């Protein structure tokens, strides 16, 4: 479980996160939704400690992350898996080396065990026989998928995904969503996913947190979203006509 308590974050004059408190549950896919620029990425980066919060605390399974020293942070981070919005693959390493990285760094596996594990993770994101390509030779969606394989290679306890399916075709997007949900349940991880894709919300959102202009505006399950009468949430969710129709059918 990850608990965020009253965090604030500003960049100079820009107050991006305002008193955000939220609990992310273990074994569940927790979604953070909100408009572009609402502060989702900043929130996620504060949670993993890439940005320092101005005030407030973050707890990982009751341990206070914000007051940990560097060594303790390093240790808990070995249980993290993170997918960045821009993939952030190591561009001097091949696909295989990218995915292997944590195995080389933190395990005593043999070469053949590592190769098997890498190929298994790559097959789960539908990327076979691309092992020897460099990131510059991949499409945007393929980079994302490699980054997901890299994030899950060591079965993290905490998985963070920033827009895992932006830039992917609908079919692959669903595949990635399912993969995230499956491994979350299989390994009882605490997973936090940033998205503005309503398909994902309906498909995998066990818990949904809606961020509006840097504040937590609403939280609930994906089913409750359709029934909510929160104006900002409705404006966000019912922006597309398809979902509006769904809502109408529901009402009848």
């Amino acid at each position: 479980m990850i608990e965020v308590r009253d965090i604030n974050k500003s960049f100079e004059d820009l107050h991006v996160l305002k008193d955000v408190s939220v609990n992310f549950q273990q074994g569940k896919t927790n979604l953070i939704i909100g408009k572009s620029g609402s502060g989702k990425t900043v929130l996620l980066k504060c949670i993993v400690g890439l940005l320092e919060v101005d005030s407030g605390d973050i707890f990982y399974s009751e341990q206070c992350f914000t007051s940990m020293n560097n060594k303790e942070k390093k240790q808990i981070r070995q249980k993290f898996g993170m997918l960045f919005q821009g993939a952030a693959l190591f561009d001097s390493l091949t696909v295989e080396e990218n995915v292997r990285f944590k195995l080389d760094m933190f395990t005593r596996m043999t070469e053949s065990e590592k190769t098997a594990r890498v190929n298994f993770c790559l097959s789960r994101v539908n990327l076979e026989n691309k092992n020897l390509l460099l990131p510059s030779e991949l499409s945007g969606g393929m980079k994302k998928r490699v980054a997901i394989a890299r994030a899950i290679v060591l079965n993290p306890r905490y998985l963070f995904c920033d827009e895992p399916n932006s830039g992917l075709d609908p079919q692959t997007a669903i595949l990635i969503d399912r993969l995230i949900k499956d491994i979350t349940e299989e390994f009882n991880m605490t997973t936090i996913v940033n998205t503005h894709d309503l398909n994902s919300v309906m498909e995998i959102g066990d818990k949904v947190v809606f961020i509006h202009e840097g504040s937590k505006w609403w939280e609930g399950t994906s089913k409750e979203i359709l029934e909510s009468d929160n104006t900002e949430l409705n404006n966000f969710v019912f922006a597309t006509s398809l979902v509006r129709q769904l809502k109408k059918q529901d009402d009848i």
Partner: protein
Amino acid sequence: MTLLHHIGKYALLLKRAFARPEKHKVYYIRLIREMEILGLNSVGIVVIISFFMGAVITIQTAYNTENPLFPTYLIGLAARDSILLEFSSTIVALILAGKVGSNIASELGTMRVTEQIDALEIMGVNSAGYLILPKILGLMILAPFLSALSMIVGLFGGWISGTAAGVISTPDYIYGIQFAFIPFYITYSLIKSVIFAFIITTVSSYHGYYTSGGALEVGRSSTLAVVHSSVVILLFNLILTHVMLS
């Protein structure tokens, strides 16, 4: 104030870079790779620069000493001392600051702005250690070899140009470069080259690692890396000359 701020931040980065590696084998592989990228790939430019430097120094010394009382073998001696004392360490270091410094700063800067450094941190890897330490050690290990190579090629260049221009004969040149030879000059030069390698890699890493923004800032970091490494090299050259030769 801001200079002190930079020096403090630089020192803290170095402290992180020299922390205990997570896994020695991974760092060792990185070290070998950096030795190749930073050191071996610089052999070509060092050879070219040194050859022409040696050639020019010899001819210039000859033209400036066209005096019948001046034995020609002294041209060899003067060229040798210039090459050993200054050119093979300081000038080569300045050239490397341009090549290696911009390479390091743009690599680390790009990794910073594309969040690759964040990705390392999130994995629980000490990004400063993993990225910077192999660069520092890699160039420090190879710098004396580059410097020694530069000495040899420089003296060779002097011989070729001196004899080709007809300002000195082969026996005179050979005699001259051995005359009143002080072996400490070589040690001095090699020590300087190691210190300069440290300056180039750390100053450039500092600029690259703390890049913020986008592609434009990467370019800026890379320019600053070259300029600042060069200035620090010249400053330390002065200090080291004073400390070691006086």
